[in-house]
């Protein structure tokens, strides 16, 4: 493999603690190495440029059944967005729900090299893996959803922690999944009858268990197994005025639980797209920001991590396993609605949405997302996401960087709002003058998410031994710049390396890389009861047989298996 030496760049790396100092980065055999370990490297002159590790996205909907529903039922999303085949690049299309090929390329152009698919319905795992297989460059993993799964509901109702854990281990293996995802716990099962669970004590119909029991049980099972990532939750009551109390109640379920994982993470709960969960008021007329209350809690509890779910003020496509929420949304905006309930496991919905700067609520949502990041005391625990494509497409990350790094750019956006004064009244953002620096951005987009995923030994930094994932941006942090320069530079990496392969050279994609799929293989003690329950449920209630359920190897042509031993 070729050796590379990236010389004289301004390096931002939280892992090594480098805050924009000039330094060299060397790559050999796919990994970062000491600079004296390369003999005749190809030299990349990064003088006057910014150098960072490859970006890591902890939560993005980029592959699988609901993503493809979004593509197929929105031909309008392709309008003016198509790019013909060109050299090594295949055809690319789509804005808020890009084709898999474009997904890979667009992440690469932003300097991202690892992206986690945030919700995989287990019965549709094959579909998710087929799409990830056809997404070039990126290392990816997918989180199977557990929060409305009948096995989980039944085991946790009876406080059977060990059985829950054994089932999780089995399902991760069967679906080649990465982590335990929970979406509207209990609420999506209720939605199978057209109902919902609106707070953490609202019992699930028939199963007679509360969301609180589900969440707490899954955190404990996750720690029992010692999985790389923590339980990853989208709580109940998403998107409703006054829901911040439900969010705080959900946070509190993690109190007193410590991580038991060898993978170096500190959290036991990752709460995703918290912007959607930080609303005060009791109607859309008086909704306001409760980001302060939320961040007070997060700042003072170090066993929690969150991501933003930043609204980008675009027309986009919402999609979530929170089936009742999507129905609620279609009632609100009267746009087309797709729904797919999945037997014994989960559900999902898809609805297009326009976040307009002329609508007060959308502007308030925009403020809340930024407040979460700007009120964060520890950027290693608050990550940049748009919950792609729910609050906006991921290609807006560089624009979010601009907003976070420049008060001036936020002021410009405030001035563009139709209801500027009302928005300022309902939020805290106008009173926040903090401007993040690139080091903090690197924490929120690289080192932080890598650590939370239990992948700090591979990604997120430039220390020797880590994967050779390095991005060079045409941005000089020491020269004066306009806010828009940030967005421009970080949308279009000058060079990108993924596992030591040069993907982008002088802003041009030159390789489709060697994409890998990460999954977690957990060894547990033999559990005859769980295996009997699995057989029974497949025999009686599933419509596929047990022998046709497990995702076989050829769906993952280049797997990377993380082994966990939970037999102790």
């Amino acid at each position, binding site marked *: 493999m070729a050796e590379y030496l990236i010389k004289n760049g301004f390096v931002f790396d939280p892992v090594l603690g480098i805050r924009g100092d000039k330094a060299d980065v060397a790559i050999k055999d796919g990994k970062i190495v000491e600079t004296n370990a390369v003999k005749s490297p190809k030299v990349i002159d990064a003088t006057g440029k910014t150098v960072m590790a490859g970006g890591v996205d902890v939560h993005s909907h980029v592959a699988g059944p609901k993503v493809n529903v979004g593509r197929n039922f929105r031909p309008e999303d392709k309008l003016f967005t198509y790019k013909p085949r060109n050299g090594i690049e295949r*055809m690319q299309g789509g804005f808020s729900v890009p*084709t898999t090929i474009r997904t890979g390329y667009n992440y690469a152009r932003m300097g991202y090299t690892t992206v986690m698919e945030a919700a995989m319905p287990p019965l549709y795992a*094959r579909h998710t893996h087929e799409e990830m297989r056809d997404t070039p460059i990126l290392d990816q993993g997918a989180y199977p959803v557990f929060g409305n799964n009948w096995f989980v509901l039944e085991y946790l109702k009876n406080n059977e922690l060990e059985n829950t854990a054994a089932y999780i281990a089995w399902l991760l293996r069967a679906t080649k999944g990465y982590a335990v995802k929970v979406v509207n716990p209990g609420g999506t099962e209720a939605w199978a009858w057209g109902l919902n669970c609106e707070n953490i004590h609202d019992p699930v119909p028939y199963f007679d268990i509360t969301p609180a029991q589900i969440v707490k049980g899954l955190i404990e099972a996750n720690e029992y197994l010692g999985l790389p990532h923590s339980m990853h939750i989208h709580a109940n009551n998403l998107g409703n005025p006054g829901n911040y109390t439900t969010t705080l109640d959900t946070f509190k379920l993690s109190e007193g639980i410590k991580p038991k994982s060898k993978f170096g993470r500190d959290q036991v709960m990752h709460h995703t797209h918290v912007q959607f969960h930080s609303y005060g008021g009791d109607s859309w007329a008086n909704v306001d920001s409760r980001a302060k209350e939320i961040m007070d809690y997060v700042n003072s509890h170090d066993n929690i991590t969150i991501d933003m779910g930043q609204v980008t003020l675009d027309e986009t496509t919402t999609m979530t396993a929170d089936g009742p929420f999507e129905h609620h949304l279609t009632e609100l905006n009267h746009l087309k609605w797709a729904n797919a309930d999945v037997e014994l496991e989960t559900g999902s919905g898809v*609805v297009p949405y326009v976040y307009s700067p002329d609508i007060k609520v959308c502007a308030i949502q925009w403020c809340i997302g930024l407040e979460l990041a700007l009120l964060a005391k520890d950027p290693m625990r608050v990550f940049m996401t748009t919950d792609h494509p729910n609050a906006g497409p991921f290609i807006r990350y560089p624009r979010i960087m601009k907003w976070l790094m420049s008060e001036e750019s936020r002021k410009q956006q405030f001035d563009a709002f139709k209801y500027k004064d009302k928005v300022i009244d309902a939020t805290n953002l106008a009173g926040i003058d903090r401007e993040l620096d690139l080091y903090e951005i690197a924490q929120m987009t690289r080192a932080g998410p890598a650590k939370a995923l239990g992948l700090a030994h591979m990604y997120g930094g430039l220390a020797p031994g880590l994967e050779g994932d390095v991005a060079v941006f045409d941005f000089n942090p020491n020269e004066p710049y306009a806010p828009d320069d940030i967005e421009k530079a970080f949308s279009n990496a000058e060079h990108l390396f993924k596992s030591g392969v040069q993907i982008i050279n002088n802003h041009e994609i030159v390789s489709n890389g060697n994409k890998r799929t990460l999954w977690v293989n957990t060894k547990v003690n033999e559990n005859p009861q769980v295996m009997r329950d699995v057989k029974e449920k497949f025999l009686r*209630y599933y419509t596929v047989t047990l022998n046709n359920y497990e995702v076989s190897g050829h769906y993952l042509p280049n797997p990377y298996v993380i082994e966990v031993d939970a037999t102790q």
Partner: protein
Amino acid sequence: MTKTITDVICPFCGTLCDDLEVVVSDDGKQLLEVYNACAIGAEKFLHSQAKDRITRPRMRQEDGSWKEITYDEAIEYTAQMLANAKKPLMYGWSSTNCEAQALGSELGEIVGAVMDNTATVCHGTSLIAVQDIGIPSCTLGEVKNRADRIVFWGCNPAHAHPRHMSRYSIFPRGFFTGKGHKGRKVIVVDPRPTDTANVADVHLQVEQGRDYELLNAFRVAFKGEKLPDVVAGIPKEKIYEAAETLKSGRFAIIFFGMGVTQSLGKNHNIDAAIAVTRDLNEYTKAAIMPMRGHYNVTGSGQVWGWLFGFPFAVDLSRGYARYNPGETTANDLLRRDEVDAVFVLGSDPGAHFPFSSVKKIYDRPSVAIDPHETPTTEVCKVHVPVAFVGVEVGGCAYRMDNVPIETRKVVEPPEGMMTDEEFLSRVLARVKEIKGV
């Protein structure tokens, strides 16, 4: 000695049953028995054993007779045909696996083809309706475990999807449906007295071509508003009664077929049917599902979805993907003389397209890749027989509810026969050579 292979997936219809048992000879070369399959499915497996099966490619001669050619020659003909065409049509893709569909898509990109699948004459109208209004749906297991109101509209599963009713919709006992058939009310809407209508509680014998009116009458009836005395040939009392039956259920599902998708109104009928389902969700839980025909037509829509963003009628001829049904659909292109070569894989347009389209295929350089001799192979210049997907080679297929299942190989293909994937990857490599990409 024989071997029994269990959990075999049936590569016939969109029901994609996965509980078949197949008995093969000890050496795995002969398929002897098929259990659990319907008559059509069993025939598909057994047909692979036909002694007179064509096992080598053939080329049509001047005098109309066939001449056997090698796979290499067939690959060369196909690659040259596609590479030299200005705008080839690559049609079919519904009776093959997703792996072949993905390879075919890459090939289509390079040669600037128009890619279309059998939805174009089937549920394409449903796909258009979904783009208008969305689709509240579910997996078939939700129907089995929860549904107590079943509607079959313009479809006849008793004949077209024979095991659908016993596996998923009418008869099975599921988690919340322990009484099976007795706990369900079945409504069939069909102008004909079909075998499916025979097992229904209610048969609404709609006037031919009046589905749109009847669907909208349901929406009126849900709201308790006034209806004319008779709508679409159905007395209003029966409509009110059926509407009340649906509203009073815990979980209603509408299955619909070609009777509504390809009769007067087409996608507008499906718009209305989905609107009926949306309305029902105000009162109870309701879902709707197209009864997809070929076992993997759904998969081809999925593959093109993630690669191009459109489920059928994808025109790649300008170097990027365009989608405009009516313009970029197979029959319209053929009849307007807009394509100059025809490649068919995994479908039989010769049997299902209008004669005016089939004549155009006959007039052009054309290749049919198909295990069987079909009306399509009869009008094409070259016929490439291949192994049966789901019998002689595995691969991914999507059920009518979009659930992907990996089909199995149960028996060896006749010696020296290629699979769809092998043939396509060879053609792809050769086209890349010719085009210098």
